[in-house]
């Protein structure tokens, strides 16, 4: 009789322990919801997260999925978030603002300061690059140069390696 009781108690304790280990959907839901931005609605069923609601752009939608997928005990993510309609570009004939050569050369000089292998000249709004740059740094340099109101950026003489 005593052995039966012990066995029952043991089984009960094991069951309770296992039950405590299983992640609850409500816990997952509150954990994910607290990490998501406004507009995202999180529901969880059996470890599967479903995202809905609306966000401003495609990046935010993708980000929401990454956040949910990164949460412990989430089996998979269904992403039904709506994205607000895209902005239509204003394709215009308004003339482009081109900086004059002297201030443009000064700002180009600042931009290439951090790229010792790169040299630049400016003529009639065109930035002409030469020298060399590592491929993985090229985008950062181009991002800086594209903000200076040049007419054109010519890197045909620049070695990218």
């Amino acid at each position, binding site marked *: 009789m005593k052995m039966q009781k012990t066995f029952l108690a043991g089984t009960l304790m094991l069951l309770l322990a296992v039950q405590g280990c299983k992640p609850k959907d409500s816990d997952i839901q509150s954990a994910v919801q607290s990490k998501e931005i406004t507009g995202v609605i999180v529901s969880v069923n059996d470890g599967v997260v479903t995202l809905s609601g609306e966000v*401003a*752009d*495609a*990046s935010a939608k993708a*980000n929401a999925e990454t956040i949910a997928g990164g949460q412990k005990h989430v089996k998979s993510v269904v992403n039904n978030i709506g*994205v*607000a309609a*895209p*902005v*239509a*570009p*204003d*394709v*215009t*004939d*308004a*003339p*482009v603002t081109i900086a004059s050569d002297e201030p443009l050369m*000064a*700002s180009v*000089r*600042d*931009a290439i*300061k951090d790229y010792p292998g790169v040299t630049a000249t400016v003529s009639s709004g065109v930035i002409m690059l030469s020298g060399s740059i590592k*491929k993985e740094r*090229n*985008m*950062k340099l*181009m*991002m*800086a140069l*594209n*903000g*200076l*109101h*040049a*007419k*054109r*950026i*010519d*890197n*045909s003489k620049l070695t*990218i390696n």
Partner: protein
Amino acid sequence: MALTDKYKTLIDAAGTERVSNLQVREQDGVLYIDGTAPSGVAKDSLWAKYEQLDPNFSSGDVVMNINTAGDENATKAKVVTESSNLNIRKGPGTDQPIVGKAAHGEEVSIISRTNDQWWLVRSVDGEEGYAYAQYLQA
């Protein structure tokens, strides 16, 4: 092929990423794309798309001037150089004398934004001057 056709997916991406004040113009063989992206992530994804369409940016037929919004009211920024210190200068130009430095990863206070390239900042050590905004993340 008109440049708006060549770069159609880039222009579409700008719309999808909800770039505000998006302006697209073609002038003298160059496509000008201007606007303000809602986040740094959105801006980066547009640049990745641009590189996809024109590897190494060698065609030289685009000038894409996309700013990042959302940081206009920020009063602090993080130094995001690759690893080196960021120079703080007396004036907004790399020819200006260095008055201090902010370490990689350090926070600075933004006093004012002189222009897109140079911001007036104060480091944690109290050094005040101009820093190159490309290396600051608000």
